[in-house]
């Protein structure tokens, strides 16, 4: 698949086959749009969502990730999410270090 990109509010989405990259900020202003674009990209045996360049995630973003996990479970696929330190902070504050259906890996702060 050809590499494509789109800017969704303060968040940049880049995708090619089985790999999705998100960067920038995800909050209530753009979370629905990001979710709407990313959900159909969860396909094939393994999808990697690279969020190492995400510089802000709110609680609504945690819900979005949970729905990615639910989609992965229902499609019987593996979704690996590479979390930026910012995402890890929000996930921890919300109390969801793990989310069903997702394999989360956490980047160390630089």
């Amino acid at each position, binding site marked *: 698949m050809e590499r494509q990109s789109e800017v969704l509010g303060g968040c940049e989405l880049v995708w090619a086959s089985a790999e999705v990259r998100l960067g920038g900020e995800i909050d209530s202003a753009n979370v629905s749009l990001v979710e709407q674009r990313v959900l159909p990209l969860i396909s094939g045996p393994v999808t990697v969502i690279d969020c190492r360049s995400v510089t802000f995630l*709110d609680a609504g973003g945690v819900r979005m990730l949970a729905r990615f996990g639910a989609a992965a479970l229902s499609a019987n696929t593996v979704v690996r999410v590479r979390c930026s330190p910012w995402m890890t902070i929000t996930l921890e504050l919300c*109390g969801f270090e793990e989310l069903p259906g997702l394999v989360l890996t956490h980047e160390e702060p630089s």
Partner: protein
Amino acid sequence: MTAQLDGLRCHHSVLVIDADDTLDKVLVPVLRRHAAGGEPVLLVVGAHTERVLRQGLGDAADRLEWGAQEQFYRQLGLAYSGFMRHLREQSAHGRRVHVFGEPGYAGERLTAYLPYEAFYNEIFPAFGSPLTCVYDQRTHPAGVIEEMRQVHSEEWTERGCLPNATYVPPGQFLNDRLRPLAPVPPHVEVDTVVCDLSELTTCRTTLGRWAAAHHLPQATLAQVLVAVNEVVTNGLGHGRTPVRVRAWRHETNLVVQADDHGGRRIPPDAGYRPPKQPRDPMGLWAARQAADILATDTSGGLTSVRMSFPHPPSVS
């Protein structure tokens, strides 16, 4: 007649230290029994209490687990969720641990910790591990110690762990102690408004610059932005615009207040129960975790949320 409970049948108890020998008379015998019976114990107490207990226990002290007070109690909400996480993990492994905690808080932080103490009664019994909190009445105001008794369902005395007659359930306790916020100072360092969701980024940028100017470490700065973002998002979603955001430094704290024009009352217990799944409400929970102190008020047609962040962080 009041029944005496043994340590492992207590749920959430308080030990009020009122004399130099209280620890020796009340706590040392309990800890000796735990050590002799091989029952798991975690003590998260201050240096003085640890010294007295170790002296009284002798070699038995080494059979107990000791946690770092400054780590467990570094922020109010994080202390609450930290104990919760620890006991949940123990429960998952079929272990019951008697936890003894001595929060090192004083003044405003101690009174702000009372609601968390109240909610331990509701949340923690599910884990099956008793929690005993230790407070020294000689170093805290009498009124705070009385309130402390109200938020613990049992109290340790020389006669054992007894049901506490002055206990008040958490919902009632929070309702009874609603207080207006102290006035915002006339001169603040940030004063901005947010009218819709598209302005959240600008608000975060403004506050991020302010917090960075105060040399907050990156992780603490992130906590400020997460907390404020959740509160402002709630104001936009559940209240009425505009949401006014003001920030200032007060003594050793950075303080941020968000006021929306909805004038609706935030339930006093909002944000004290952890979300069980991501679809549960969690904005105020996350904000309470990120901020050290979070207080709410509804007056004059405004719904206000004030968050306080230690600066420098972890100073009590």
